[in-house]
């Protein structure tokens, strides 16, 4: 278990996590699964090269914070602008996600949505359409960077092989927060769900990938094409290329071609292919149709023409990203959903909520296109498109000519004017990283921001549950211009420190309690005791939830010391819930007498010390005290 303080520093660093995609042209080791180069490479060399792709930089900042930057081939990825800029400027890039205040995003989204529908939409189609589109583009650009951040975080975790700077729980939190960033209420999801969200998403993504890998392989096989998975440095195939063998063009001339799922034209009737002047490659196959080195005995050479490139991370179908014979093919398909949506909403002012025939028509149309796996009206290619950029950036095994060809074609798929070209993104990333580091080092930069954030965090210590929402409302209604902050005093700083640590221990104990009916079987009981000790020591700052959790720990352990610590915690937590829980333990006839006696003793002391106790519980406790005197 990580200590609370190290968690704090990581969390502080994570405060400003934004992302910057690297489009480095430096040599890397992402490989074609079929490429000869890959098969010939020594696995240990590959691993070493892969490790070199990633580097962690830690920058200690004033105020006890730490800036963690993960570099892909010496370029930081975690920071990026989310606005369209040709030059990054000198300001720090805005965060795409503030992990310490993820809920703020939810309220902002509400506010903007309300503003859009109540105000902007009433000013006619031009304003309505342009604002909708701008917000959509901004959101898409952000999603694209979130997708890349997620992919790179996973790659960093799996490929460096070094001890992660994050605990599994922290990794799950960062990943889950990023994953939930595009959900309406994603920012206010209870922390306890993060692990589940992360696991579910990981499983779903890998399921989709395998599913599409196999679907595309089978379709390629059926149509006598060649399938080539493209792998990330961790070996996961995220994309795939389809090729046609030049000798097959003659052999299969005029043959029927089923374009379902492939979404490309029949290569057997395409007159351009026999005279193909574009990119080609010669591959060597053995008798078992495996790609081998040219000098392998019995190997035969086949000239291959690329037909299409697909993303495998897309739900249900491999999604066409590049059609080497028709540049607009993927773009048209990408546009279909957006056009339908924009025309219905902005031009026809149709809404699923207000127009029942439209609602049903839309449901049926969406069902059919989705169910049949038609590459029309599908969700955006954003994620897989974004990952392909990453793949191209990290891959060294791509023939440079093919890589450039794909990059060039890929830019045409994007519908988002905010999206920059790969080179521009890389340039911006470098500039932004420089600006970020400068910002982090400037006294009025990141340290000041952290200071402000801490003062904002102190609000929860100084103000109760009635005042806090009002202060938040004021913040939202003023578009963030007004933010209530406390004056930082040594006492408040100390209280904040304790609060954060209590939050950490409470969160840990909640996970413990949720996970098992008997704690010592699953957890290192010393970790549990340590958290309980901390809670007991700082009982005055603990809340109802912590009291309930301590009682649940008591019920789920047979460990003597842990049980004692639970009772001690409940005694020291000065609130009604804690005393109610103690009373419940006392009343539990199934428990051994000593635990009940100990509870009674603590309750007597609580009465004597005039702790906070619910009146009805106080009566019971007083009768208990009188009985035993």
């Amino acid at each position, binding site marked *: *278990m990580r200590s609370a303080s190290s968690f704090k520093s990581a969390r502080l660093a994570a405060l400003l996590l934004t992302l910057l995609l690297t489009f480095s042209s430096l040599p890397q080791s992402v490989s074609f699964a079929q490429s000869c180069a890959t098969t010939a490479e020594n696995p240990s060399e590959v691993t070493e090269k892969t490790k070199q792709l990633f580097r962690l930089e830690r920058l200690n900042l004033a105020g006890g914070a730490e800036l963690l930057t993960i570099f892909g081939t010496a370029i930081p990825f975690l920071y990026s602008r989310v606005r369209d800029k040709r030059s990054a400027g000198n300001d720090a890039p805005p965060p795409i996600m503030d992990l310490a205040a993820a809920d703020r995003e939810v309220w902002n989204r509400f506010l903007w949505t309300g503003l859009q529908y109540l105000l902007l939409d009433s000013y006619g189609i031009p304003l309505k359409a342009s604002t909708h589109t701008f917000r959509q583009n901004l959101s898409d650009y952000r999603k694209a960077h979130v997708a890349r951040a997620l992919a790179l975080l996973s790659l960093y975790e799996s490929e460096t092989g070094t001890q992660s700077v994050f605990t599994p729980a922290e990794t799950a939190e960062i990943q889950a927060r990023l994953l939930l960033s595009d959900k309406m209420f994603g920012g206010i*999801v209870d922390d306890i769900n993060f692990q589940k969200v992360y696991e579910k998403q990981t499983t779903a993504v890998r*399921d989709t990938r*395998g599913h599409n890998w196999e679907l595309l392989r089978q379709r390629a096989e059926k149509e006598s094409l060649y399938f080539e998975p493209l792998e990330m440095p961790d070996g996961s195939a995220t994309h795939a290329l389809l090729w046609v063998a030049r000798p097959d063009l003659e052999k299969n001339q005029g043959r029927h071609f089923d374009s379902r799922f492939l979404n490309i034209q029949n290569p057997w009737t395409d007159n351009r292919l026999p005279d193909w002047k574009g990119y080609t490659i010669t591959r060597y196959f053995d008798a078992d149709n495996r790609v081998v080195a040219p000098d392998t005995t019995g190997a035969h050479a086949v000239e291959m023409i690329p037909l299409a490139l697909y993303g495998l991370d897309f739900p249900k179908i491999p999604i066409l990203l590049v059609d080497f014979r028709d540049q607009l093919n993927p773009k048209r398909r990408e546009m279909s959903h957006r056009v339908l949506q924009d025309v219905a909403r902005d031009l026809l002012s149709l809404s699923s909520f207000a127009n029942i025939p439209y609602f049903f028509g839309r449901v049926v149309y969406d069902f059919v296109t989705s169910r*049949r796996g038609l590459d029309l009206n599908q969700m955006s290619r954003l994620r897989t498109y974004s990952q392909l950029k990453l793949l191209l950036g990290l891959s060294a095994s791509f023939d440079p000519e093919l890589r450039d060809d794909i990059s060039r074609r890929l830019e045409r798929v994007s519908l988002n004017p905010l999206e920059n070209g790969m080179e521009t993104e890389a340039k911006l990333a470098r500039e932004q990283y420089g600006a970020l580091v400068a910002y982090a080092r400037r006294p009025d930069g990141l340290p000041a921001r952290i200071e402000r954030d801490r003062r904002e965090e102190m609000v929860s210590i100084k103000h109760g549950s009635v005042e806090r929402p009002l202060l938040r409302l004021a913040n939202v209604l003023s578009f963030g211009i007004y933010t209530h902050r406390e004056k930082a005093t040594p006492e408040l700083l100390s209280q904040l420190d304790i609060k954060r640590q209590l939050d950490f221990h409470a969160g840990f104990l909640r996970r413990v309690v949720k996970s098992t009916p*008997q704690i010592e079987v699953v957890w*290192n009981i010393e970790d549990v005791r340590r958290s309980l000790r901390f809670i007991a020591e700082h009982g005055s700052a603990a809340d109802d939830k912590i009291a309930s959790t301590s009682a649940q720990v008591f019920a789920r352990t047979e460990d003597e010391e842990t049980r004692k610590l639970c009772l001690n915690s409940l005694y020291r937590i000065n609130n009604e819930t804690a005393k109610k829980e103690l009373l419940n333990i006392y009343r539990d006839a199934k428990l051994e007498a000593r635990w009940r006696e100990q509870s009674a003793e603590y309750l007597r002391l609580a009465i004597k010390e005039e702790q906070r106790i619910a009146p009805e519980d106080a009566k019971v406790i007083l009768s208990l005290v009188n009985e035993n005197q």
Partner: protein
Amino acid sequence: MKISNCKVGNRQLAVGSKKRTLRCLLPTAYCLLLLCQSIAFAQTKRVVILKVDGLQPDIVDSFVRERDPQTGMSLLPWIEHVFYERGTRVENFYVRGMSLSAPSWSMLDTGQHLQIKGNVEFDRLTLHAYDYLNFSPFYMRNIAGLSIDMPGTETLDEAGLPLLIDAYAPQERFASFQLYQRGMHWRTFQSAAENRFLKSPRELLDEWTTGFEVRNTLSDQLERDLIERLNNPAYRYLDLYILDFDHAAHHNRDRETHLHVLQALDATVGRVWTAIQKSPLASDTALVIVSDHGFNTDEKVYSQGFNLVKLLGSAEGGGHHVITKRRLMMDYAIKGVNPFVPLITTTTPESYYLKGQSTDYPTALVDFDGNERSSIHLRDSDLNVLHILLQQLQRKDLSVEMRRAMMDAFFKTLDRRRAEWGDKLSQLNEELSALHREIAKEHDALKALEEKKRPKDNSDSIDPNDVKRLVARYNASVDNERKYSEYARSLSNLLALRRDTFDPRRIKIEDVIAKGAMGVRNNIYELQNYVVGLASVGPTLAADGSLDLQRSFQHVDYFSLLHNVAVRNNVQAEVSSHPINFIAVRIPSELIAPLVEKDLRPTSDVVWIYDGQENQALILSREDEAGHLSLRYLPIKNLREDENGSIHFERVGWRALLPLKLFEDPQLNVPEGARISWLDDWHTDLEWLRATHKTEYSNGIIGLNEQLARHHNEAFDTDVPGLSDDERKLRRFHRRRRELVEADMLVVANNHWNFDVRGFNPGGNHGSFLRISTHSTLMFAGGERTGIPRGQVVEEPYDSLSFMPTVLALTGQIKNGQVPVKILWERGFRQFPGPVIKEVLSGGGEKASPVAEGVAIAP
């Protein structure tokens, strides 16, 4: 006084005699007690079974041994705590037969040899599909009052094989939803919905945002129900069927997914174990975890699918319209949302003679479930010949010579099969008559029950489920009578055709060639020379004016066709470019016996394994007088059957690359230096299991025999004395129905290949005889009084047949290691062919005392 003295004397004598007897008996009893202590069964009063579909023990073991860096505990702490530290693990437990859910659970749940041979079975004559996996139709039929038990349970009932839960009275058992389910508890759905959705708004909002996990709703509720019932000592049998690992491993090959799903299982083990410990019968309760098969999943390899349906539909595959019980590309079809899945016909445009007639005349049935194997039925090749000739004879443009030649060929073919088909038809008609009378009886019985149910009668004595069961059986009988009669009518019409009165143009083909029927199973000759249509050159006359059958028809040799399939996209080094490993077929022993020396002669069915012309084997089997099975592996090549039904093959010596790859396997456990001599001998199934279980194909030799051979079943035995004529015919009818689901070929996939075309299973599959797929989980743990040894690992290999007798032995419901106690005998339980896992019972303790209700009255 005398009398009195005498009395006293007698009493004294008696006392003296008793004392002497006691003196003799006590030491004897003491010795017997000492002797029996090691074999005495401990007292397990209650058994809780976690039935985990597809739980691969090697994956579990590796996670159990791995430490969580955060906690320092096992990644699967509860499994370690309960089964590794406090229980007994059967380390080498295997599926006997195919590593496939429906057959495997049937063996685990009955302790008897296989009667159910696939997840889906097709009746060749009626195309009735036994879909043992599909819950939705069962739920609907249950609501409609048409079914009370899952289809698998109904089939086993017909075969007279009681389930493990039948050892307990309904009020003593809690069985979750599973393949062999008896009855239905609808309240579970209501509670599940309540528990899922009646939450705090905050929790609901979180669930909505993160995605509702509807999939686990029912299983979570079943777990809650089970835990609740543990507090009631009346419950003596409880089980929980868990599908999650199987589902996840089919889809995902990655370690994280496997770990997440196993950690969820581990948590279930923890909750159930903790609940047991808190229950009144804690020290008398045994917790068992068992799986029906392993899983061929590899983190580095995607399992690749091969479409057998398309192959059979292609011109080279015979242009078959193919029937399946799983919709192809189900997730991409609008109709795929239909949960009831009717028979799915895949129509081919490449049919040679049945274009546009796919729904009337499908000619192939394919079951590909489990995915590493597939069972294929093809229509009787001679029915194809007759069908094609009839079509031709109905043409008006035939020359006189050709018409005469075709007519000769038609009757030659028909006459060749007339006796065999005629016998089958007359037997079937006899059976249908008996069935008709049985239906009348069932109708009367139901009527009588209806009378009893009227309010004035004491209806408490009638179990409503039993009534529903009778209704279901009655409906099934009526349906069977109708469908088989239809087939019989067509066959009767066909056999009634006579050359002298034959006018093909006045015949409706559907009157003589039954629609939707495969006819009799093809023999090897037919499968090697299967007629799929007219040859491209059309009908050709031989020099003597007869129809040249060889040149006139398009033939397919299915063995070489399937074996030679290869793919062009071979992107994974670990995966062969050939999807098919081997094809296996049952051959009646009488065809092989004359061809081998006396000491090799089989007395029961032979299995032929085809792995190319050069690499073939016969698995010979025989049973001794006590019914003990022995098997012999005979390496051969070039097996073929001629037109007259004679089999020919060449013997070869032991070498590498023979089917099942035993000779070259370093894990083959035979005396050093005696590999060939050991392999060249008969061995019992237990000897084979001990020698081969760690090889690549593990107990494949036993599994193939179990899967393909016909096994004796008392309920089908017509020679039992005292049976009425109708009873005998009905038994024969039931046996026939089981035999009619036997496929022509069992096609087994190569490693990391599968035949799933319903969707994609890149994560992994099972169904083959590879060890990774047959190796299953079996672990026991229990309270102090169960006597289950703690921390014990059983290395002796066991298979599915041992599970049921071991559980019954734990609870004292079995005698002499094989024979069920009287009360169970009366409920239909019979001697178990598999051995009890004695190591589980070696913990000592009290003498056996059967726990099921009513057992106490049994002698």
